[in-house]
Every structure is written in structure tokens, then in C-alpha cells.
């Protein structure tokens, strides 16, 4: 008996018992639905991780003074000697593995233009920062290294700041007061939209780090000339991340006079690792949910097995007759297996439709419910997951009833009342 004929026989049997077939697949429907939703959530979370890593740059390292060891001799960030612009220049000039480096100072700021106030964030940087972060300007230009040296009062605005302060045109060359100091607007940053944490990444102003340090943030540390809060560096293309990290750490240890064996008073962070670790809890949650979905699916499978066993018993005489007219054992087994798989596939398709609808609904409802961190990703390949999972359940839970059917004694089956 060929497969097509087996499917035709199976579908006829299912149609004959439409209501019972439907009840039997309810469990599979809900199981597949649960799996679809959890897979969509998990894929959404991993997409968010990838987007964040991409937005930070996968070849980027971040350096901060202070150590992790809170119980030790040294305190956390802040108590250790901060890095300075000289450190940044030294890194840029001496380390071949590093192609760009910038110190940063971040501060809150009140921006005023034409009598409009807008509280925002200012980030003081070296032009290298634009390269490290893969940012760009949509209009205007980035300030030069010379302008950093001169502490020029020039600023580049994010799109949100532009929209708030300059509703009409004529931004470039305009004057904006930042914490009272007049700055010339020389560029507008390319829009980046919301972060996956729900932050507006366009509500930002950037300016030369030297200018921000002295005129806006008033950032100074005793004993350190030109301090910076953090250092961002970009690794040369093709360089190994771990090797570069070690080079950098060794360079800074020597520069800061830390003896071998002594603990570092700074941290070099790889942001890709950091985010991955941060999102790991979500991945674990996703896994737990997926396990719950699978259990639902398995319970659905038990429903299928039950109805298939009933079907085999009910059709004992039919099986006897089929054997008498020449069906081989495997024909009988395949007939019931195909029936079970067909049953589950129908359940899988219904579950797919419901699951995708629910996932899309969640995605659209999440922001209105204030759950900005919920990301859902409905991938077309989810259809394969649904069909694969339901087929697997059909084979797994259909096998025993089908095997039992194929082992019936033809004479006993024919006489069965």
C-alpha cells in the first residue's frame, strides 16, 4: 500500500469520527500553541540580545577604574584613581591591537534654545568614539581632534533634542545653551530609535570631552589632570578579543604601576559578554516556558494515544478483514500511524494559527501594558517547529496503538464482537 493511499484511508477514518477527532487533538492544539508562543518569546529575547550587541559593536571594549572586589583592599568604581585623557592617548598610540579610543564623560544637562527648555543627557567624547560605536551624523559634521584640544563649544544633537528645541528648520549653525554655556550646533546624529530596554537613544547631545569636562559637567578629580569616566576602544579587525583584552590589561597595569599578583584597580569589559550574561535569565525563563509547552504537548500526545487505542479496538473486525484480504502487518501499522500523524498535524496547524495570533497579539499589547522589555519574534520557520513537533507527537504516541493493531491475530480479530 503506498503512502498516498494510506493517507486517504486515514483521512476517511478521521472524518467519520470528526467530533472525537477534534476532542483528541485539543491537547496537541494547546501544546503546539504554547510551544509557538514560548519559541517566539525566546527568539524575541535573543534578537534583542543580538541587536544590543550590534548596537554596542562586537569588537568594542569598555574600561572603567575601580575593581569588582568589594571586600578587598580597593573599593568599587569611584574610589580608585580615574583614567585620564593621557591614558586614552597612550592606548591609542602604543597598542597596535587598538584602532580607536575615546574617553567619555556623561552628565545630565539642560538645553535651551529660543527660550525652550529641554532636559537631556550630554556625552563628552573624542571623535574616535563615533567610530567605536559605529555612529554617524545625518547632517552637518563631527568635531575634529583640534576642536577637542581647543575645548571648542560645538555640539551634535540627537534627533529628539532637535525636534524639541528646533521645531522649524535652521538647526545647523544655531546657538544652544547647555547648562548656560553657548554652543554652536554643528551636526545632527543619525537616528537610532528605541533601545531594547525602551530608552530613547536619540535624546542625547554630544560635544568635545574637554568642553564637557570644564564647562558643562565640572568633572574633576584631585591629582588627575583631564580625568575621564570611561574609556571606549575598538579592536583592530580580525584581532582576537581575548588577546586584545590581555594586551590592554597588561598595558594599563604597567602604566598604573600594579605589580604582578596584585589586584587590578580597573576593569576591562567586553560588552557582548556582559549583555549575554544579563539576558541569560531571560533565556532560562524562555527555556522553562518551552519545557512547560513541551509537557502540554506530551499530555496532548497521551490524548492521541488514548483515542487511537479506542479506535484500534473499535475497528478490530476491520483490521481482521484487512489482514484476510492481504494487508501485511506493516500496512496495518502504517495505516494507524498515518492516522495518528494526520490527527496531530491537523492539531499542529490549528495550534500554529492560534499560537502565531497570540504571539502577535502579545507583541502589540505589550507596549500598551507598559511591558517594554517583552520582545516577540514570529519567524516563518516557526511553522516547521509546529509541524515537526506535532508529527513527532503523532509518531511517538501513535506507535504503540499502531503496533498493537498490526499484531492482532486475523482469526480472533475477524470474530471480535
Amino acid at each position, binding site marked *: 500500500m503506498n503512502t498516498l493511499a494510506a493517507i486517504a484511508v486515514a483521512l476517511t477514518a478521521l472524518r467519520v469520527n470528526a467530533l472525537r477527532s477534534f476532542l483528541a487533538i485539543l491537547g496537541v492544539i494547546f501544546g503546539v500553541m504554547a510551544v509557538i508562543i514560548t519559541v517566539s518569546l525566546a527568539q524575541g529575547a535573543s534578537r534583542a540580545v543580538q541587536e544590543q550587541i550590534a548596537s554596542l559593536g562586537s569588537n568594542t571594549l569598555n574600561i572603567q577604574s575601580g575593581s569588582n572586589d568589594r571586600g578587598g583592599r580597593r573599593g568599587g568604581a569611584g574610589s580608585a584613581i580615574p583614567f585620564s585623557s593621557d591614558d586614552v592617548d597612550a592606548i591609542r598610540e602604543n597598542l597596535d591591537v587598538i584602532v580607536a579610543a575615546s574617553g567619555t564623560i556623561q552628565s545630565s544637562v539642560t538645553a535651551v534654545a529660543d527660550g525652550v527648555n529641554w532636559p537631556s543627557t550630554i556625552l563628552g567624547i573624542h571623535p574616535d568614539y563615533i567610530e567605536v560605536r559605529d555612529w554617524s551624523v545625518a547632517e552637518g559634521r563631527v568635531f575634529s581632534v583640534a576642536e577637542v584640544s581647543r575645548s571648542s563649544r560645538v555640539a551634535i544633537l540627537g534627533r529628539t533634542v532637535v525636534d524639541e528645541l528646533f521645531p522649524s528648520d535652521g538647526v545647523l549653525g544655531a546657538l544652544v545653551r547647555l547648562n548656560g554655556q553657548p554652543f554652536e550646533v554643528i551636526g545632527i546624529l543619525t537616528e537610532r530609535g528605541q533601545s531594547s530596554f525602551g530608552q530613547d537613544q536619540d535624546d542625547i547631545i554630544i560635544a568635545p570631552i574637554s568642553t564637557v569636562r570644564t564647562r558643562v559637567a565640572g568633572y574633576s578629580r584631585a591629582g588627575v589632570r583631564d580625568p575621564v569616566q570611561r574609556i571606549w576602544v575598538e579592536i583592530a579587525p580580525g584581532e582576537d578579543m581575548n588577546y586584545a583584552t590581555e594586551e590592554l590589561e597588561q598595558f594599563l597595569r604597567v602604566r598604573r604601576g600594579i605589580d604582578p599578583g596584585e589586584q587590578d584597580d580597573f576593569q576591562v569589559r567586553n560588552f557582548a559578554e556582559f549583555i549575554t550574561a544579563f539576558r541569560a535569565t531571560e533565556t532560562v525563563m524562555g527555556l522553562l516556558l518551552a519545557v512547560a509547552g513541551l509537557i502540554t504537548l506530551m499530555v496532548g500526545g497521551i490524548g492521541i494515544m488514548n483515542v487511537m487505542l479506542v479506535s484500534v479496538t473499535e475497528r478490530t473486525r476491520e483490521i481482521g478483514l484487512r489482514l484476510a*484480504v492481504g494487508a501485511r502487518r506493516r500496512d496495518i501499522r502504517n495505516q494507524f500511524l498515518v492516522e495518528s500523524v494526520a490527527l496531530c498535524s491537523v492539531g499542529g496547524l490549528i495550534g500554529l494559527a492560534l499560537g502565531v495570533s497570540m504571539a502577535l497579539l502579545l507583541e502589540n499589547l505589550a507596549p500598551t501594558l507598559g511591558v517594554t522589555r517583552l520582545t516577540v519574534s514570529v519567524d516563518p520557520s516557526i511553522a516547521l517547529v509546529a509541524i515537526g513537533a506535532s508529527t513527532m507527537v503523532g509518531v511517538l504516541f501513535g506507535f504503540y496503538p499502531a503496533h498493537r493493531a498490526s499484531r492482532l491475530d486475523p482469526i480472533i480479530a475477524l470474530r471480535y464482537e
Partner: protein
Amino acid sequence: MSAPLIQARALTRTYHPGGGDVHALDGVDAVINTGEYVAVMGPSGSGKSTFMNMVGALDRPSAGELVIAGEALSAKSPDQLADFRNRQIGFVFQQFNLLPRTTALDNVALPLLYRGLSLNRRREKAAECLRMVGLDERMNHHPSQLSGGQQQRVAIARALAGEPAILLADEPTGALDSQTTIEVLDILDQLTARGITIVLVTHEKEVGARAERRILFRDGRIVEENP
């Protein structure tokens, strides 16, 4: 037309229901030739159905040997026996055993499903067999829409669909009234005229009288020929 088709040698079938031995068949020797129309008769429990099940390869003997169309059934694997039933044997049962909610046409086509024929070829052949038993008008009726006699004719058409060498009918008229019994027996007469070998089990003298040869069973043995 007198080559031996079915040869039974010391055919024995013993059941062990709850300890004791029941000799359903107790050393049966028989030869049935190609084209013969044989009635198997005898009292209830004498082993008639057991004999038929052996010949139809639905059951294996406890001892003895059965050679059909030159081949020993004992040498065959389960799959080979299935194939043997499919090609050499057509069964007709007392209770018809038609598939419910399935048209007469598809019921008749069932044996051909296991030969891997296409749906069209199966239905073509099934229609031809239904015509042979005079039911071509009822092809698309379900068993529940047919009379007992008509259902048994559908069952005979199904037995013929695979063009078997042997038609095995175990009390085919047992559930029919005298009028429809005659209809069914007339069809069997036509079939024997076409050369098919028929083995028929019956209790009724008049039914047995239509066959050209009678074998009488008692206590699992053949006790008389042509009584």
C-alpha cells in the same frame, strides 16, 4: 482441470483452552483439484471453519502439511502469507464483514489496495466485479443501504476482485433467507462455470447439494465423501 490445487496431509490443529487439548483438526488428508466446487459439511464444532482458516492461510497448523498451488504454506513468512491471501484466496464470511460507511465500490476495491494499484485501476476492476454479481447499480451505496443478500453479493465481488484461484466461503448463506440464498448460490454456480475453485462450508443439505462434491467432517476428521 484435475491438477491438485489444495493438498492437506495429516493436517492437525490443537487448541489448549484452559489446560485441556481440543483437537479442532485431527489428521485431515484431503485433495481438492483446480476448478472443483466442494461443500464442506458436518455438525457444529467438527472443525469446518478451522479447516477453512488453514486453507486461507489465516492460521497455521499444529502439525501436518498444507500445499497449495504447489507451495508449502509452512515455508512462508507472515508477509509472504499476506501476499498469498491477497493473490490466491478470496474470502466470503457469514457476517459479510463489509467496512461500514464505505461504498460498495471501495469495499470491493479493498484487496487491490494492498497490491499497490492506482485508485482508478482499483475502482475500474471493482466496478467490473460488481457487475458480475449484478450490483453495478449500487456501486455508491453504503452497506447499511443494502439488503443482506446484496451485502453478501458485494462480499463475493470483493472476494473476486483479486482474481484468486480459490474462493473460500464459510456459511455464506447462514444469515440469508431462502430467496437470497438462491441468488447467492446462482452466483457461485456462474463462478464455478468460469473455472474458479470453490470451497463452501454449510449446514444445509440443499446448499451442499449444489456443489459437485461434498466432504463430511466429524470431530476434526473427514468421515465421508459425497454423502
